[in-house]
């Protein structure tokens, strides 16, 4: 074997660096199409919304600290409660998992140099930012929605919610839905087409299976929500009648459409967390996942079955018994794929060699909370039990165990796990563990008593309660728990922020990770991999010979694609070399398209139809610009 001088390698790296270089400074961030930078933008933006949703949660808990409190008046309480749910689901969990984690990690895990549609990716981000800003313009101008996050009509109809709060809600969700749809399409194409040649589907990390399943679920679920929202706005802004019974409409139509989207959404929220868990566990227990094919199938099955269960949110509506029985049975079936994943994680941990470092702690915490949330979830499939507990604090307890415990804990664990990869520095381990315990204890103190309150009859969304109800003690405990929880979360982010500047250098692979991203530098270069990596198992990083071959290929200049702004495309299933793709470079059009789109939505909200038409023309112009082929660079 001929070994070229290291100088040749350096030249190659230099060339790749030049080809992939983006503009410096703020302009660079505005025009970036690099999936890693977009992931970071997504991270900070959704973190901001996490903070906003968190403040709203603390206000709600403070109002409920004792009976007949007046921290918030009823109107403000309802606004905070509605905005909290809307923010956390649509503007924190989904963009944080798909936008930040998915964007940053999918191309790295599959050995690609970017997402399949880099400009569309940038556009997704800018639309998300604009849609979130749109909602919060409403909140800060005193026009927050106040009909709850599922916004039942006729309460949300013009007659009972005359202000523009509901319009801010409906239009911002339509708006952000565009972003999420683009993101999902991008993820699907990326996962199917840009896997490093050799990474056939059965060699793809489980993380990517989870994100693939979620992206498909989004594409099929979002149209139901968008339909519901468009009908609502036609009714509210233009006087159509879809939901008003006195005009021949049907308020249950909204509930059906909303939950046809809303229940798949639950799995859309939780599947990325499953994916993160299946990334962290093998690394820290130093063994491959038990029952790998079953887990991959289970991830896809959960996303699929999630579409058949929506009416279990509606057991008190007065549906026919036969209908409720079907939906109860379908809901029970989902337990099976969830159980497979759960026991795969547990068996892997027990039979491995676990190192309880911070990321694994969050995952173990997640497993415990997910079991509790899952068990309380099963009880809703017992229809008579559901008909007692629905719309009480028992439900609030359940979905916070599932959404906060089971979806957000892995996100936090993932932040610790990939922090060294993204920043090149280590977080503080002792502090990280302390944050975990604070948050874990805070979570249980906050949400566990809600089960009891719910069984004792406390309805959700009550802005206050009387002292004679006997709910004072548990509510006080919950509120104190919420403060503890907030402290735990704060300590997580202070740790990460300080470590960003003071952390010890991390090196490429501080944990002995199992997937490809650990083979490149921390942080990764703009082109991710100088050599398109060789892959022969789902644990590519543990295939030492493949990694050695990559190093040899770099020296020899094989599979380096250094002639242009390029990445490799492969066939969808078997991942055989297909073609070399020319990737677009930075562009100012995505933020401009998003701005023009904001103009359209704002004018619709204000019912300035002429201005809306003008902005639509501007939007068309920017979309045309977006599609212009960039000038050939010398």
């Amino acid at each position, binding site marked *: 074997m001929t070994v070229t001088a290291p100088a040749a390698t350096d030249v190659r790296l230099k060339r790749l660096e030049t080809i992939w270089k983006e503009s410096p400074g703020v302009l660079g961030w505005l025009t970036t199409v690099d999936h890693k930078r977009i992931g970071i933008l997504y991270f900070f933006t959704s973190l901001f919304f996490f903070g906003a949703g968190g403040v709203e949660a603390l206000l709600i808990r403070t109002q409920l600290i004792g009976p007949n409190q007046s921290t918030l008046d009823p109107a403000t309480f309802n606004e905070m409660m509605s905005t909290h749910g809307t923010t956390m689901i649509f503007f924190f969990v989904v963009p944080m998992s798909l936008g930040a984690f998915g964007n940053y990690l999918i191309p790295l895990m599959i050995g690609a140099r970017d997402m399949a549609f880099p400009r569309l990716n940038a556009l997704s981000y800018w639309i998300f930012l604009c849609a979130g800003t749109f909602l919060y313009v409403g909140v800060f101008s005193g026009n927050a929605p106040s009909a709850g996050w599922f916004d039942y009509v006729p309460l949300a109809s013009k007659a009972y919610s005359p202000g523009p709060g509901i319009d801010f809600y409906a239009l911002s969700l339509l708006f952000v839905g565009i972003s999420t749809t683009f993101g999902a399409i991008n993820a699907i194409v990326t996962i199917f087409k840009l896997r490093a040649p050799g990474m056939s589907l059965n060699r793809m990390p489980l993380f990517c299976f989870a994100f693939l399943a979620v992206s498909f679920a989004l594409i099929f679920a979002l149209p139901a929500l968008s339909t519901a929202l468009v009908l609502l706005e036609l009714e509210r802004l233009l006087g159509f009648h879809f939901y008003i019974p006195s005009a021949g409409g049907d308020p249950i139509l909204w509930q059906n459409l909303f939950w046809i989207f809303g229940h798949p959404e639950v799995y859309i929220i939780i599947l990325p967390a499953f994916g993160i868990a299946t990334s962290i566990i093998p690394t820290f227990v130093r063994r491959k996942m038990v029952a790998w094919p079953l887990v991959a199938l289970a991830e896809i099955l959960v996303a699929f079955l999630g579409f058949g269960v929506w009416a279990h949110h509606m057991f008190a509506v007065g549906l026919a018994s036969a209908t409720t029985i079907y939906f109860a049975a379908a809901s029970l079936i989902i337990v099976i794929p969830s159980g497979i994943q759960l*026991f795969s994680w547990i068996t892997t941990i027990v039979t491995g060699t676990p190192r309880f470092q911070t990321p694994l702690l969050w995952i173990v915490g997640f497993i415990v909370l997910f079991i509790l949330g899952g068990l309380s979830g099963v009880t809703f499939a017992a229809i008579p039990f559901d008909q007692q507990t629905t719309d009480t604090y028992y439900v609030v307890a359940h979905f916070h165990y599932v959404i906060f415990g089971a979806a957000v804990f892995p996100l936090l664990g993932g932040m610790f796990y990939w922090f060294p990869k993204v920043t090149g520095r280590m977080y503080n381990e002792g502090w990280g563990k302390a944050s975990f315990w604070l948050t874990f204890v805070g979570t249980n103190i906050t949400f566990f008593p809600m089960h009891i309150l719910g069984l004792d009859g406390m309805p959700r969304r009550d802005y206050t309660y009387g002292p004679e109800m006997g709910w004072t003690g548990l509510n006080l405990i919950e509120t104190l728990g919420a403060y503890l929880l907030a402290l735990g979360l704060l300590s997580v982010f202070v740790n990460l922020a300080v470590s960003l500047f003071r952390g010890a250098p991390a090196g490429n692979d501080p944990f002995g990770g199992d997937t490809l991203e650990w083979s490149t530098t921390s942080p990764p270069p703009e082109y991710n991999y100088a050599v398109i990596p060789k892959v022969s198992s789902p644990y590519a990083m543990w295939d030492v010979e493949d990694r050695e071959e990559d190093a040899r290929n770099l020296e020899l200049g094989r599979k380096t694609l250094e002639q242009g702004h390029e990445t490799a495309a492969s066939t969808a299933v078997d991942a055989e070399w297909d073609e070399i793709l020319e990737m677009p470079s930075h562009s100012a059009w995505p933020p401009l398209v998003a701005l023009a789109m904001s103009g359209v939505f704002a004018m619709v909200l204000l019912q300035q139809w002429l201005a809306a038409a003008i902005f639509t023309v501007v939007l068309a112009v920017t979309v045309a610009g977006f599609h212009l082929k960039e000038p050939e660079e010398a």
Partner: protein
Amino acid sequence: MLVVAGIIFFGAVAMLVVGWFRRDRPGLPFLGENETLNTGLVVLFGMAIPIVILVALFIVSDLVLLPETDAPAAGSTTMTVTVIGHQWFWQVRYEGEGAETANEIHIPVRTPINLVVRSADVIHSFWVPELNRKIDMIPGQANNIELYAESAGVFRGQCAEFCGLQHAHMAFRVYAEPAPKFKAWLAGIKRPAVEPTGAEAQQGQRAFMEDGCAACHTIAGTAAEGTLGPNLTHLAGRETLAADTIPNTPGYLLRWIQNPQSVKPGTKMPGLGLGKKKYDAIVAYLTELR
């Protein structure tokens, strides 16, 4: 259900605890290497056992117990009560009796009652946890369930579907009474309102009719025929005001009609700014409406 859930939870946590004690050491001696056995464990705990438990749960709760919460079969009940949800009170009608009241439902014990629920505005949900399931009150739709009290007593109920500003103060009471007592009560509320006797109460009646109250409230036997607010024909016979928000005493009643927005912010009842004397008179009138 709780016991089974407890076993599952603590069983799974016990496995994680085993993992903790085995930290930094290679896998369990008899399991670690055998992938077939490990996969078998996943299938056993993740599929086989859940299927048994879930099938049992399904049969017991959704096939055996569910019919108990079904709407009563036609002809199986002898009495129908309609409750109509309003933002934020409950209108109660005894069908075929011509009797109407609000926020307090009297029923005879050990008598199945066909309870029909409707809504006048947004979606509410009728829920007396001790007597039966929740049932949503949906505009344009009538749902019904059976209301049945085994023994006499007062049962608290409340709105369970978020219905706007005062969802938290939309409660009611169900009084289950022995049949004779119930019959006497029903006969009582079927009668029109008594005419006021004292001078102040008569002034109060005039103010009630002329200064705005009558636009929204009905007092049977008088000119007051409003339908936006609760029926007040026998208000003095009720124990609570404003949908079980405050006790029905002259002091609270005065505070309520003088300044409803401070008692129940957002309530549809406006403060009319009538002056203390008129309010006292109206209280005197209303407290006579037995």
